């Protein structure tokens, strides 16, 4: 472990970065440098085109050695981007890494004051002066390491969550896979075929579902939701609500001493259940009993009772007989598990496209959504794979596909973003009707066909060659013929420059996707952020797309933003890899920004204890006195206690009162002492 060094006089080095022209384009670097060299304690001021590059970092190391620096200031971009870089350079040069201070003169300066070079330069001087004032008072800090629990959790059992769980588990990590529905599989299990390869979704997904179920390192927790999360990277305590399923697994039955009992998926109970309700997996297009499985390929193959509709007649209990799998008085149970890292793969919902009244969804019988189309065209769907018109059961010949149904929409009713996979699945739908229905003609109404992935443009070419008709125009409205229930699609063929009215038998709306309804709750539970569009926010859009701003929590799949299956699986593997790193290292370093009790002056009043939002503080007896004690691993360094302590007995590391006062003085006094 590094030792804490003390220095007599502060000796500060200031390094100003050009960032190419990002900073130098509007800030006079030379002026800032010259100004820096006049500041108290500054012994060297230097600049470089890219301070983050190897030569730039070397400058820091050389200066520390030659000038015997006690503190380093780099005026460059945001600490979020390069603080770790320059801390490493500072450490490399032989100083404690926490003797580094950053002045942000890019994001908060040159980028926003592009056309005011003089003011920007003045502001940069202020920022440097403030940073130097703090750097002069910085101290050596030693980060703490904490052990990492050798287990991970994946929340969400769609294809992304399943892949992340399989990767983590296969890397030797105990993995809890939590799914709120009774079965894993997610949206992908509702799809028929997948673009551009046209392989059957179930054929590639069900083996994976079986793998998940059988994997020795995966504990599959279906019909389970996350209730509470406590702790921090390496040591999360996650409380789970196991919703009352009303049906015991064979293992659960064995635990209760019912040897050979538990649900074997025989389905006898379903046959006798008198309650009929719509099957949500089939989007309400086929019936389901109160005791149910969504479809034959569910994993685990265990029945579930919907207690909202169950009338508790007991017929299922009777028919289940000696297996004694059914308990009609089942209650939710709770369990807390400890994990080191967490992957969120909570997926998405479909935008309620009926809110766009002009397209008549839920008003006109023969206007359906793409997901409904998937079920109708799927051999295991409610019609056995025969696409039919809901109004009369007839086979449609002319089918209109409406792209961007709620996507790329800034009206407030709809989503401003591109939903990213609708173009491709609509091309696939066009192919499917041409393949299945002789003489069928798909009309695809589009603004742009976004076929950006590998073999996607080739797929577009193929579908056009197969006979799909492409009309470049966003659909203005759809009108139903009240007699035939045919639909008139009105728009402009913008390439022809004429309004057109295409009469079709059926319309399929490629409805936008939106963040899952539970996203806000998820966000709060795991302390992660959302981006403007409501999706969970990654730590960095390019350089850390799987991480979040909460250490130890990672993202996979559409919960982070619309993406197709290949991208979801790729991100899931990335997230699994990222989530496995702390576990494999076995310990994580915590930033040493925690509160420290100055025991000599602590009066033991305990007022700080309840103020702490992280339950990190406690009163303890020490040498016959009552003093406050900080659990460093729990403390987030928020400063609530330090700001409040009536005796000034709490010191916030790296943000000490003298350091902050020096910064404020440096700003307000304009450099005068």
């Amino acid at each position: 472990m590094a030792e804490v060094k003390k220095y007599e006089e502060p000796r500060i080095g200031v390094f100003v970065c050009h960032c190419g022209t990002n900073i130098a384009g509007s800030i006079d670097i030379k002026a800032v440098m010259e100004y820096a060299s006049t500041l108290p304690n500054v012994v060297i001021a230097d600049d470089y085109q890219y301070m983050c590059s190897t030569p730039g970092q070397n400058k820091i190391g050389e200066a520390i050695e030659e000038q015997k620096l006690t503190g380093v200031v780099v005026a460059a971009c945001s600490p979020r981007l390069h603080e770790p870089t320059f801390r490493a350079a500072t450490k490399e040069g032989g100083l404690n890494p926490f003797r580094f201070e950053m002045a942000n003169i890019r994001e908060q300066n040159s980028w926003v004051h592009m056309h005011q070079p003089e003011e920007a330069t003045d502001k940069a001087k202020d920022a440097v002066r403030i940073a130097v004032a703090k750097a002069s008072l910085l101290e050596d800090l030693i980060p703490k390491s904490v052990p990492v629990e050798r287990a991970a959790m994946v929340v969400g059992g769609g294809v992304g969550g399943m892949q992340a769980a399989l990767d983590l588990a296969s890397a030797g990590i105990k993995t809890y896979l939590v799914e709120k529905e009774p079965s894993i599989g997610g949206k992908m299990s509702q799809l028929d075929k997948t673009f551009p390869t046209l392989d059957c979704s179930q054929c590639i997904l069900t083996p994976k579902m079986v793998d998940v179920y059988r994997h020795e390192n995966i504990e599959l927790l279906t019909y389970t939701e996350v209730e509470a999360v406590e702790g921090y990277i390496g040591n999360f305590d996650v409380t789970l609500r196991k919703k009352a399923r009303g049906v015991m697994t064979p293992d659960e039955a064995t635990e209760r001493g019912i040897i050979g009992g538990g649900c074997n998926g025989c389905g006898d109970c379903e046959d006798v259940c008198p309650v009929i309700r719509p099957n949500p997996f089939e989007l309400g297009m086929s019936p389901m009993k109160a005791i149910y499985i969504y479809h034959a390929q569910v994993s685990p193959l265990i029945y579930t009772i919907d207690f909202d509709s169950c009338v508790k007649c007991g017929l299922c209990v009777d028919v289940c007989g000696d297996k004694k799998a059914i308990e009609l008085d089942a209650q939710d149970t709770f369990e807390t598990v400890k994990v080191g890292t967490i992957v969120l793969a909570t997926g998405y919902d479909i935008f309620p496209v009926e809110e766009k009244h002009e397209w008549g969804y839920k008003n006109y019988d023969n206007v359906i959504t793409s997901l409904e189309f998937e079920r109708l065209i799927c051999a295991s769907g409610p019609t056995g794979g025969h696409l039919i018109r809901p109004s009369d059961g007839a086979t449609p010949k002319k089918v209109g596909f409406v792209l961007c149904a709620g996507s790329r929409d800034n009206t407030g009713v709809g989503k401003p973003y591109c939903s990213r996979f609708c173009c491709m699945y609509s091309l696939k739908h066009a192919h499917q009707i041409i393949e299945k229905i002789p003489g069928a003609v798909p009309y695809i109404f589009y603004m742009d066909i976004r076929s950006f992935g590998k073999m996607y443009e080739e797929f577009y070419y193929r579908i056009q060659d197969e006979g799909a008709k492409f009309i470049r125009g966003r659909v203005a409205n759809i009108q139903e013929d009240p007699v035939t229930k045919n639909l008139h699609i009105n728009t402009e063929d913008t390439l022809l420059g004429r309004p057109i009215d295409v009469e079709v038998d059926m319309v399929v709306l490629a409805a936008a996707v939106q963040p899952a309804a539970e996203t806000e709750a998820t966000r709060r539970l795991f302390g992660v952020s959302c981006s403007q569009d409501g999706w969970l926010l990654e730590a960095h859009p390019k350089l850390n797309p799987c991480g979040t701003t909460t250490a130890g929590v990672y993202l996979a799949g559409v919960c982070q933003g619309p993406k197709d299956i290949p991208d979801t699986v790729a991100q899931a593997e990335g997230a699994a890899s990222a989530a496995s790193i702390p576990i494999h290292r076995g310990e994580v370093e915590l930033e040493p920004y925690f509160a420290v009790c100055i025991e000599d002056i602590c009066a033991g009043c305990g007022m700080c204890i309840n103020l702490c939002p992280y339950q990190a503080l406690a009163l303890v007896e020490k040498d016959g006195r009552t003093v406050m004690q900080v659990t460093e691993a729990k403390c987030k360094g928020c400063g609530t206690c330090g700001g409040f302590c009536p005796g000034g007995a709490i010191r916030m590391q790296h943000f000490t009162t003298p350091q902050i006062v020096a910064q404020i003085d440096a700003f307000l006094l304009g450099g005068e002492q």
Partner: protein
Amino acid sequence: MAVKKDYKDQTLAERLRDRKYYVPDSNPEFVKEVEKIGQTPAHMCFQCGTCTGSCPSAPRSTYRIRLFMRKINLGLEEEILTDPDLWLCTTCYSCTDRCPRDLAPTDAIMAMRNLAARRDIVPRNFLKTAQAIYASGHGVPNNDANRAARVKLGLDAEPDTTHKYPEYLEGIRKIMDHYGLKERADKILAEEG
């Protein structure tokens, strides 16, 4: 700039006129003027066609609201302001209601009509309505047959508007004169004969 063709044969010169779009031939400020008057960010149009597809005038004419939006953004001021189709919008606001970019193409049309009017390009009927209001306060004024009918219904022959209270006309005329509207209407209509 468009290539000038100084062909001796004027008919040929016109037939073979350079039809390319050249940036210097356009007015980049035009979109800003339209946006200021119309209070809608017309430069955000992405040419999806929802507007023309919603338009009651499009199927029975060459009027294309989408093309007007395009021309605004290309600064084709001359072409727009002299286009007789500019006056075929019924202001039904269907395009505005459905525009996915949340623009108001109808208000852009109104703005362009205002800009045309500044050049004295206004159809007669618009000016005649203005004249009628200046004269009586009403775009559609009362007449004798209607007065008789009103009386039969137990209403006063003149409604409680400027018709019954002509003393209010002065205020209306002052407002219109503030903008010189009556004078302009008279002048344009007189010139057209």
